[in-house]
């Protein structure tokens, strides 16, 4: 019922009650007159017989339907009045709780989006993800021929779509526009399976893969950027010199198959194979690069689908043992993330949500403390209520209504505050270091689930915040309070508040330990010796395939590049390598058979490798430990040589010199000789363990992607532009800007730095909230004892004595909190040890500064909060009531 109607009907209801009772009195009066009373006396008697009219009415009102709602409204109105009277305290509480709520909502939305919400699709409940499990149980993608087999031979799915879990950045042009854009590849039936409808034109359908004229679908954001032409279908765009016809525009809600990244152009798998000149991706069963998403038929159960997939993969394994032996197709529920990153995402968002909830806990403790302080000032009011006959339950209900209002207000503030950054995250451009500009479309939704969870948080927070103060202050203690007691020292009442404070300090310490660990871990990573010296190195990367070079042209290009680099002023040395050290593409993996081993039947070993030229080691500063590096005598024609790292030599030829040893590569077809041994380094991640690694000779292993790395005389930044110029002059457009190796190293720590920033932000928030709580509590507990202070002062206590008195108390509380927090921190370090680099369970370099910081901050705050009271004139303090 709407409130005004309730109000209206209530007014009418009151009138009726009045009239009914009036009638009763009149009727009784008539009766009394008939019995012989004088009219005045008759009326008096009638009223007496009825009893106290207001009491009767009150009893009747309690019987009324919706009476509890009226009480609630009354409590609510009263609560709002009380809160707005103490608006300073209220706004402090709403702010701190609101900020914590906002952070929680963001955390929950991330969690919700990453783990719970299905990707954009019609009826996502019937969609599943399919991947294969290798013999070792590891996650593996599916090859195109296998995908075709699953697609065409199953009975349980109405369709299976495929896509590589990656996006590509490449040069694209449309009309006069020429830019580096992102391309997303998907199978021709992807849109049909997902049930995505076009915004404009049409989307791909089954069979588009086979058509001679390749086509493309634009994303909504790209279409907008390119002028939102409603007649865009039929026009053409160019991707890496391939001309594609635009057939349609995808809806706004679909940003691509790779979560978190926006896409400009969608193409089919066949078109992509054409563009990347990689026909093998469509025919080779070992080229596993696809993730499958399938729609279950209306009556099919996941169980059946599982069984059928198992049968199909068994058939494949029987037909193609060399590629598919022991591999099974596995089915999971669909989510925005691919299955292999699921567990990481669970862990990360789990940690995030935990920290966020801890911050919320601090804020709740904070507000509970403020309310306790508020309640202390309301003793008189509670007393009067109790004296007028209010029950304890009624008092608790009224006080809880107040905290509920407070929490609801903070919840609303928090939710609305959270919407702003969430909206921002859903579509924004950011320039990543090294990789250049990217569109992000994380689309973190604050949907119904999050709304429900937020509501739950509000309810829990309301109870958590309100219950303790309500129970405490409703404890009727008429005698004590009426007599105007003087609180001295430990009056038991502070216990609850002190417990809250200890919790707050402990949680804050825990979060700060987390911040410390992140910083320490990052510091450790920066200190790691990558095996080369990154200072004064700059590089530029070129993709020769994109330029359509043949191998012979490519080798010519190598020479041109070397020549141009040698002409550069201030370049001390330079080299060519297919990729920069560290990072995703820094190495390949190949099977190696070791010769000269007693055991001839030994299994091939997988060894990571890259192909570099002879100057690589000198340029990067990788020390040569034995033998030689590549030189001009090693050519395509001469026998193949490799350089191995120290770890490889130590592992496979322990105690021997590796130089001159031989091994077989490429299924044992080719024999290579070890020419030299160099120092160990880090190859893909800074936190990886030392592992065997080897270098082929670039002259003997042609690479289509090539990087020119130069060591410069001074700051490498000055050579970025000259390097880019070289590449431009040679007529090979580069998708990536030239970088310094320092930048590149920082980029490999990007995720670590981002995590550190987020955790630091939360840590600062936790510290701020805890500080606010501490201030409020100390302020109130000292204010309660102002009379005591006055008396002590009058008796000759020095101010410094009083300061010590209060600081000692705070020190005890903070000490307890810090101790508990440190223990929790050690536990957390042990649990999350794998997430940090070079961290011991008891990391004193983190624990000691955190403990000191928190104790010092608490003392400073306690001093600031207590000083005004101590500094007051003793006469004021004693008189002040």
């Amino acid at each position, binding site marked *: 019922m709407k409130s005004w109607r309730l109000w209206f009907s209530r007014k009418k209801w009151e009138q*009726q009650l009045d*009239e*009914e*009772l009036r*009638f*009763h009195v*009149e*009727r*009784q009066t*008539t*009766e009394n007159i008939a019995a012989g009373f004088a009219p005045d006396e008759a009326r008096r008697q009638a009223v007496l*017989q*009825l*009893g*106290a009219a207001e*009491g*009767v009415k009150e*009893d*009747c009102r*309690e*019987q*009324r*339907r919706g009476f509890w709602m009226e009480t609630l409204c009354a409590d609510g109105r009263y609560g709002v009045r009380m809160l707005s009277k103490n608006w300073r305290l209220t706004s402090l509480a709403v702010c701190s709780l609101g900020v914590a709520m906002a952070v929680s909502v963001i955390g929950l939305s991330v969690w919700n989006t990453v783990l719970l919400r299905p990707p954009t699709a019609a009826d996502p409940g019937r969609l599943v993800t399919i991947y294969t499990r290798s013999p070792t149980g590891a996650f593996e993608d599916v090859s195109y021929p296998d995908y075709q087999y699953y697609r065409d031979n199953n009975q349980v799915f109405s369709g299976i779509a495929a896509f590589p879990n990656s996006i590509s950045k490449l040069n694209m042009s449309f009309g006069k526009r020429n830019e580096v854009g992102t391309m997303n590849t998907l199978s021709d039936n992807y849109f049909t399976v997902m049930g995505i409808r076009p915004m404009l034109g049409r989307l791909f359908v089954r069979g588009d893969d086979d058509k001679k004229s390749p086509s493309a679908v634009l994303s909504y954001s790209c279409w907008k950027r390119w002028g939102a032409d409603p007649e865009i279908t039929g026009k053409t765009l160019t991707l890496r010199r391939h001309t594609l016809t635009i057939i349609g525009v995808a809806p706004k809600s679909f940003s691509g198959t790779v979560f978190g990244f926006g896409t400009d152009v969608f193409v089919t798998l066949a078109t992509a194979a054409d563009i990347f000149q990689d026909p093998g991706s469509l025919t080779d069963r070992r080229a596993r690069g696809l993730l499958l998403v399938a729609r279950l038929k209306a009556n099919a159960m996941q169980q059946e689908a599982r069984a059928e997939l198992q049968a199909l993969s068994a058939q494949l394994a029987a037909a193609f043992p060399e590629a598919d032996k022991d591999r099974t197709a596995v089915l999971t529920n669909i989510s925005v993330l691919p299955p292999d990153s699921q567990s990481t995402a669970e862990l990360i968002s789990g940690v995030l949500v935990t920290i966020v909830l801890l911050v919320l806990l601090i804020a709740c403790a904070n507000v509970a403390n403020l309310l306790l302080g508020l309640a202390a000032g309301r003793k008189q009011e509670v007393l009067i209520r109790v004296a007028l006959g209010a029950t304890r339950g009624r008092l608790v209900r009224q006080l809880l209504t107040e905290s509920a209002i407070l929490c609801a207000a903070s919840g609303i503030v928090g939710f609305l505050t959270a919407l702003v950054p969430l909206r921002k995250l859903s579509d924004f451009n950011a320039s990543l270091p090294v990789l250049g500009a990217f569109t992000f479309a994380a689309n973190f939704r604050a949907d119904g689930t999050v709304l429900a969870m937020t509501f739950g948080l509000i309810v829990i927070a309301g109870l958590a915040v309100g219950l303790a103060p309500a129970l405490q202050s409703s404890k009727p203690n008429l005698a004590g309070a009426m007599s105007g007691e003087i609180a001295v020292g430990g009056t038991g009442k502070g216990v609850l508040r002190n417990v809250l404070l200890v919790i707050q300090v402990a949680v804050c310490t825990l979060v700060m330990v987390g911040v410390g660990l992140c910083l320490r871990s990052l510091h450790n990573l920066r200190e790691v010796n990558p095996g080369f010296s990154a200072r004064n190195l700059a590089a530029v990367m070129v993709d020769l395939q994109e330029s359509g070079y043949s191998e012979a042209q490519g080798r010519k290009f190598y020479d041109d590049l070397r020549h141009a680099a040698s002409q550069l002023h201030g370049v001390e040395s330079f080299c060519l390598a297919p990729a920069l050290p560290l990072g995703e593409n820094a190495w390949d993996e190949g099977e190696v058979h070791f010769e000269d081993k007693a055991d001839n039947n030994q299994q091939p070993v997988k060894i990571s490798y890259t192909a570099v030229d002879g100057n690589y080691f000198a340029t990067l500063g990788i020390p040569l430990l034995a033998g030689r590096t590549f030189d001009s005598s090693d050519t395509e024609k001469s026998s193949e040589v490799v350089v191995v790292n120290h770890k490889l030599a130590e592992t496979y030829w322990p105690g021997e010199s590796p130089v001159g040893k031989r091994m077989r590569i490429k299924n044992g077809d080719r024999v290579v000789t070890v020419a030299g041994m160099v120092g160990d380094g880090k190859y893909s991640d800074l936190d990886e363990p030392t592992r065997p690694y080897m270098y082929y000779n670039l002259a003997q292993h042609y690479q289509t992607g090539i990087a020119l790395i130069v060591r410069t005389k001074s700051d490498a930044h000055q050579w970025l532009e000259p390097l880019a110029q070289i590449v431009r002059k040679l007529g090979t457009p580069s998708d990536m800007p030239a970088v310094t190796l320092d930048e590149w190293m920082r980029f490999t720590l990007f995720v670590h730095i981002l995590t550190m920033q987020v955790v630091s932000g939360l840590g600062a928030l936790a510290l701020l909230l805890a500080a606010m709580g501490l201030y409020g509590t100390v302020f109130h507990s000292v204010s309660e004892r102002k009379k005591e202070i006055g008396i002590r002062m009058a008796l000759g206590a020095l101010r410094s004595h009083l300061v010590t008195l209060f600081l000692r108390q705070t020190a005890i509380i903070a000490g307890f909190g810090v101790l508990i927090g440190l223990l929790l921190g050690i536990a957390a370090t042990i649990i999350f040890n794998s997430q940090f680099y070079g961290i011991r369970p008891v990391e004193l370099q983190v624990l000691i500064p955190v403990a000191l910081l928190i104790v010092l901050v608490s003392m400073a705050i306690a001093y600031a909060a207590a000083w005004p009271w101590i500094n007051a004139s003793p006469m004021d303090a004693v008189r002040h009531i």
Partner: protein
Amino acid sequence: MKAGTQTPQDPNQTAACSFPVDNLQEGRHTLAVRLGEERMSAPAEILQGTLDLLILKTLALEPMHGWGIAQRIQQVSRDILQIQQGSLYPALYRLERKKWIRAEWGASENNRRARFYTLTKAGRQQLEKELADWERMSTAVALILQRT
């Protein structure tokens, strides 16, 4: 009530009679029992829910307004039971909320606007149930009183 203190001595009776015989905890709806000529003697409290029963029974005959109900109960009980008028109206509102009686405005015997209460179908059923309960209860109490 003497009965209240005696019931627990007989376990069989306790089991058979499940409603509270003792209502000292809550005596919101009380009836004053007039004993002889002593008008304002201490009101003897009668079983909880009895007022409901009396109201329902009274309304079973015909629709009546509040004052009428009080008057009728007093008359029929030959002035032994006198309702405290203040407790009548909350009881009426409670019964109305439970949908056992229905209220509507009508003209009183002296032609004034008055609120008349009518027994509903649900109310009639409730009356029968409460009458049956009352029978069982009074039989039980009588049995105990006879034995002692």
